[in-house]
């Protein structure tokens, strides 16, 4: 009993937790009656998640369409019977016939780039290479699948690079007010500078390294050049490989040329050639290292050479200055013998030049004022233009944004349209739709009828009300008139006075009568309401339920006491 009670209580609690407002307890489940359970079930059914309805209501997303396609493919593959491997046909079904697999292996492709406009002329040799030597993309690698992977990868890389550039240009490039090419250049120089700084700081930390002396070099390319020099071992290695390749091809050429000469003493010839080859190789190596050595020497020498050149230039400059000074001194020495007259002349000259200076100054003032005004005006115009341009820039930016947003919207809408079209095609074209609409129409017409009836009843009651009001008004007025008339006569006549009294009594009695009639009406209505309530309560079988609950209570108490007794005994 108690177990049943507990289960019922937990169920009731759960129902209340999801928001059931009606009366509910354990008895609802144990001693159910029809209306209660009905309302409870209605409530619960409404609470059920309506996935289906939502799915059919909303336009299906792209992922849903994809998932459906996947599901269809899986279904088709499940329907295919399994075949042992010797019964399979090639290309029959790729799920059952797993061919050789290849890993996703990417190599960089070399593509013929289109020259953008006439400004970027490519080298003729490059053009020739692209025209006659470069194989088409599908023939650039020996492995076939890596071609496919590489093409896809290349395309994705280009796309993402373009997107990134777009983003950067929209966010920063537009604000900098440069053309795209200028922006590129500036970014490049900035990058160079940053790299150079990094390299400098790295070389400064290790002062004994040979690179530290290069810190003063001003250009990145020079620095890189220096690096290349210090990485001599590496370049040597590549030289070595080059020579190897070269000798190898030579060997092959020699082999091919030696074949037609004959078979006699082939071994001897080969030996001879081998020796010769090794000799040549050694010589070649020697020469190579010599060349490298010399190149390094030249580089070493070039630094003092430039220094010496600089010194030479400076010395020349100093020389010319000194020569000028000497000439001035020579002139003054020439003027010395006739000192007085020359002094006078000089004074006159000085005065004239002072006058001229004053004159020029006044003239300058005259010219200066309008020029300054002009400058001010131009400055203003400039600032105005600046303002205008920044305004236009912001406008352009908003326009860009709007364009982007609207293109995105258009794309989205197009996709939705496509999906809706496919959905429409996929929709089952049966009769249920028309049946539904018919039913809806029927319901609507029923509701219309009911509405009309309600209107009729309402107008009836209104009319009745009006009549009642009319009648009461009439009554009041006639009573007032008769009252007045009878009252006038009552002063004169005794019998009339009596009749007046009767009249008053009659009026009062009638009023009481009407009151009682109204009261009976309300009471009747109340009685009807109460009867309805009693009926519903009877439907709920409250009394029986209460009795049952009492019984349950007794049973639980009995059980409890029995258990307690057991515990005591135990």
């Amino acid at each position, binding site marked *: 009993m108690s177990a049943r009670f507990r289960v019922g209580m937990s169920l009731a609690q759960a129902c209340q937790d999801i928001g059931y407002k009606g009366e509910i307890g354990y008895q609802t489940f144990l001693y159910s009656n029809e209306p209660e359970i009905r309302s409870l079930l209605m409530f619960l059914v409404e609470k059920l998640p309506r996935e289906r309805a939502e799915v059919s209501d909303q336009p299906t997303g792209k992922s849903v369409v994809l998932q459906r396609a996947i599901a269809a493919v899986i279904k088709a593959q499940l329907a295919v019977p399994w075949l042992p491997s010797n019964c399979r046909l090639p290309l029959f079904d790729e799920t059952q016939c797993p061919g050789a*697999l290849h*890993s996703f292996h990417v190599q960089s492709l070399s593509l013929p780039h289109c020259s953008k406009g006439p400004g970027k002329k490519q080298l003729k040799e490059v053009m020739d290479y*692209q025209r006659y030597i470069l194989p*088409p993309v*599908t023939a650039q690698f020996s492995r076939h*699948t890596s071609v496919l992977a590489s093409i896809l990868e290349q395309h994705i890389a280009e796309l993402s690079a373009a997107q990134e550039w777009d983003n950067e240009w929209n966010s920063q490039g537009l604000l900098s007010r440069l053309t795209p090419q200028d922006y590129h250049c500036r970014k490049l120089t900035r990058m160079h500078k940053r790299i150079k700084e990094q390299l400098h700081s790295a070389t400064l930390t290790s002062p004994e390294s040979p690179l530290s002396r290069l810190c003063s070099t001003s250009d990145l390319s020079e620095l890189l050049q220096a690096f290349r020099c210090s990485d001599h071992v590496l370049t040597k290695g590549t030289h070595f490989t080059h020579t190897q390749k070269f000798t190898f091809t030579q060997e092959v050429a020699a082999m091919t040329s030696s074949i037609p000469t004959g078979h006699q003493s082939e071994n001897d010839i080969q030996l001879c050639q081998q020796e010769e080859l090794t000799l040549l190789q050694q010589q070649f190596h020697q020469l190579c290292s010599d060349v490298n050595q010399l190149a390094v020497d030249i580089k070493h020498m070039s630094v003092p050479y430039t220094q010496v050149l600089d010194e030479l230039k400076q010395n020349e400059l100093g020389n010319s200055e000194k020569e000028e000074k000497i000439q001035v001194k020579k002139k003054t020495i020439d003027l010395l013998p006739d000192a007085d007259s020359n002094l006078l002349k000089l004074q006159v000259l000085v005065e004239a030049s002072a006058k001229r200076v004053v004159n020029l100054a006044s003239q300058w003032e005259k010219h200066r004022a309008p020029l300054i005004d002009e400058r001010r005006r131009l400055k203003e115009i400039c600032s105005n233009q600046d303002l205008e341009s920044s305004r236009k820039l912001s406008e352009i930016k908003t326009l860009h944004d709007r364009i982007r947003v609207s293109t995105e919207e258009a794309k989205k809408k197009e996709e939705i349209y496509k999906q809706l079209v496919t959905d429409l095609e996929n929709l089952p074209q049966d009769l249920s739709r028309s049946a539904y609409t018919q039913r809806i129409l029927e319901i609507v017409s029923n509701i219309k009828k009911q509405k009309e009836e309600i209107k009729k009843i309402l107008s009836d009651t209104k009319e009745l009300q009006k009549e009642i009001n009319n009648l009461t008004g009439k009554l009041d007025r006639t009573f007032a008139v008769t009252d007045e008339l009878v009252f006038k006569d009552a002063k004169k006549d005794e019998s009339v006075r009596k009749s007046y009294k009767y009249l008053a009594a009659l009026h009062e009695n009638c009023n009481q009568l009407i009151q009682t009639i109204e009261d009976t009406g309300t009471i009747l209505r109340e009685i009807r309401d109460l009867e309805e309530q009693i009926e519903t309560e009877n439907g709920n079988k409250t009394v029986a339920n209460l009795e049952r609950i009492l019984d349950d209570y007794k049973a639980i108490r009995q059980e409890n006491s029995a258990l307690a007794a057991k515990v005591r005994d135990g």
Partner: protein
Amino acid sequence: MELSESVQRGLQSLADPSSFDQSSFQVFVDVSFRSLLSSKGDPAVLDQPELRQIDQILLKQCHTAATTFILEAVKQNADKSTISSCLEELTFSAERIEIFYSTHQKHKKELECLLASIGRRPAQINDVSWRLQYHMKNAQVDKVNEPFYSISLKSENEGSSEDINFTCTMEQLQDLVGKLKDAAKSVEKASQM
């Protein structure tokens, strides 16, 4: 379908009737599909008599663009409307779109197989053989008395078959069977979306 600038440019010059006339366009599309499908890259694939009069650089650019476009279309499983709208934007005429699309349909299945062959795949189980054994006792315990199964799964991967051998107790086998059933059920569920 998003295309990069170089691909767009290549396709535009492919659409241009002044550089590709009708017959050379047909040949070119055929050649592009064939070059993707042939297992070893043939450097002379563009060496067709119809394509002689076209500049080789332009031809190679167009070839790169066309192969990229084909692969992207197959990768995204593009339908006819997508392909044709994409090509229309690149000023292809309706006739050329029709030629391209029909060739595409002809080779789509093979290209899908080719793209599907890039990647990895676990081995497939084709068959199983089993034996019920009884473990009575061992050096340490006198009475073990437990049944166990030795199972050999015959699997196949990339054409070569391989056996996977293991033993398991009753519970482990039940667990395995339950897992397999779960897997089968989820595949079925996935097919009924």
